[in-house]
């Protein structure tokens, strides 16, 4: 516990060495989410509807997805920059320390400032919830929290898969980027506006839709077409399960690294 706290503080101190950069990075993260939000507002202003969804409902999806992604980036950045860790040989250093590899990797790049972007998502979530007049019970709040947590697991699992790929080939990482950053792009809007292949991809291959959109669509009061109540509590479980699955890929990667190096 103390290790975790200390490692995070250290990242902040290191980043603070470059003061202008520190400020700008903090701002940049807000701007990134802010740009997406403005884009959404422009679209809502012009079109009012997106498929069968009202603009405000879309904003609710957007908020939930932004929160999930911001949290994932906060803990999972070490995974997205993993190719450079391998290239510079720094993975050896991690192997030489008596701590779990994934924990070390996550803490090495963990940047609590990213949580700031959660605020943008939360604002979108609260405003849209108020305008939709949603009634929140503890059970519903719990479901929302679990959905977001499950999505964080799913996104983190995709980051993990990306990192595991680095053990095999650095060049193919772009393909997985499509699932991670593509998933962020796709899933900020309700999934059923997309053609079937995209929906299937993000429901069953990279189950962001399963974790987030099914429960959220139910919370907003417009369940997905093939929705069944039994799915509702299954959805939040899908994320951790997917993450567990991807740790297998990661382990295979580590085994390969330790098996093939010189």
């Amino acid at each position, binding site marked *: 516990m103390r290790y975790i706290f200390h490692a995070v503080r250290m990242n902040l101190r290191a980043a603070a060495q*470059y003061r202008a950069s520190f400020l*700008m990075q903090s701002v940049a993260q807000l701007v990134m989410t802010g740009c997406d939000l403005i884009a959404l507002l422009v679209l809502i202003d012009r079109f009012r509807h997106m498929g069968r969804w009202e603009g405000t409902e879309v904003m609710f999806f957007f908020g939930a997805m932004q929160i999930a992604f911001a949290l994932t980036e906060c803990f999972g950045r070490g995974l997205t920059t993993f190719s450079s860790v391998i290239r510079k040989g720094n993975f050896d250093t991690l192997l030489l320390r008596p701590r779990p590899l994934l924990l070390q990797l996550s803490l090495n790049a963990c940047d609590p400032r990213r949580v700031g972007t959660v605020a943008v998502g939360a604002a979108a979530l609260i405003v849209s919830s108020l305008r939709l007049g949603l009634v929140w019970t503890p059970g519903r709040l719990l479901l929302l929290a679990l959905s977001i947590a499950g999505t964080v697991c799913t996104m983190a699992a995709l980051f993990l898969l990306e990192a595991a790929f680095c053990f095999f080939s650095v060049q193919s990482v772009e393909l997985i980027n499509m699932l991670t950053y*593509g998933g962020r792009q796709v899933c900020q809007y309700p999934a059923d506006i997309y053609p079937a292949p995209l929906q299937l991809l993000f429901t069953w291959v990279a189950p962001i839709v399963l974790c987030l959109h099914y429960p959220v669509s139910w919370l907003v009061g417009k369940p997905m077409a093939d929705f069944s109540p039994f799915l509702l509590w299954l959805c939040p479980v899908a994320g951790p399960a997917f993450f567990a699955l991807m740790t297998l890929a990661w382990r295979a990667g580590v085994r390969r690294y330790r098996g093939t190096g010189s």
Partner: protein
Amino acid sequence: MRKRLKPYLSAFRLRALLETQYRAAALGGMATQLFFGIVLCCVYSALFTQGQADVTLAETVSYVWLQQMLFRALMASEGELMEQILDGSIAYTLLRPVHQHTWWMFRTLAQKLVGVAMRLLPMLLCMPLLPPEMRLSLPESPLAAAQFLLSLGCGFLCVTQINLITMAVSMRTLDNRGISGLINLVMMFLCGNIIPLTLFPPRLQLLMRFQPFAQALDAPIRMYLHAQPPAAFALSLAVQLGWTAALWALSRQMWNTNLRRIVIQGG
């Protein structure tokens, strides 16, 4: 004159050659661009349920694809410059009898032209594989195509100046992530890459069209979609070139100040 240009032309040629080496990166980038293009087209297909007064779905789809295909023109990969600054080897570059600002301008231009060309053609070849309503349509007329190309050339010049300003700021702050990341984000947004500028509310159109970032890709794309009458075309080109000149002066000034600082610090 030719003799004075020679070092810059050779910088241009070298950077162009280097860019052709990054084929795997180009392929990966292309795949990403295709994917994002398809996703955005899907989103707009869902949005355009009833007609809009000023924009059609087909136009928006074409706008999205042109943005994706020309995406490489927006960012300069200035990694090498930053490395040189951070490890101090910039001093050797400074010893060369060339003007740094112009030198990097030519390099950036070369990288853009070759980088875009490498991605543009394969992506065009992918278009027939998409459903018809998701494809890039042809330019409205031969005139539109001609105007587009001319304007695109100016756009490249203009965005190069923006990149040079970004580089100058990064040099100043010895930071290659924070500030350039921020400027690049704002640039992507204001260039129309994240959402077509044509979709902004009509009351904001004037502002969106005349801001400097729109000169890079938005202005040429509008011509691709609709050929302009001579007067409007001239005005648009004048705006592009005006911004280019202004930004050129600004970036040159910033570089000169920076270089003096580096020389004085003389590490």
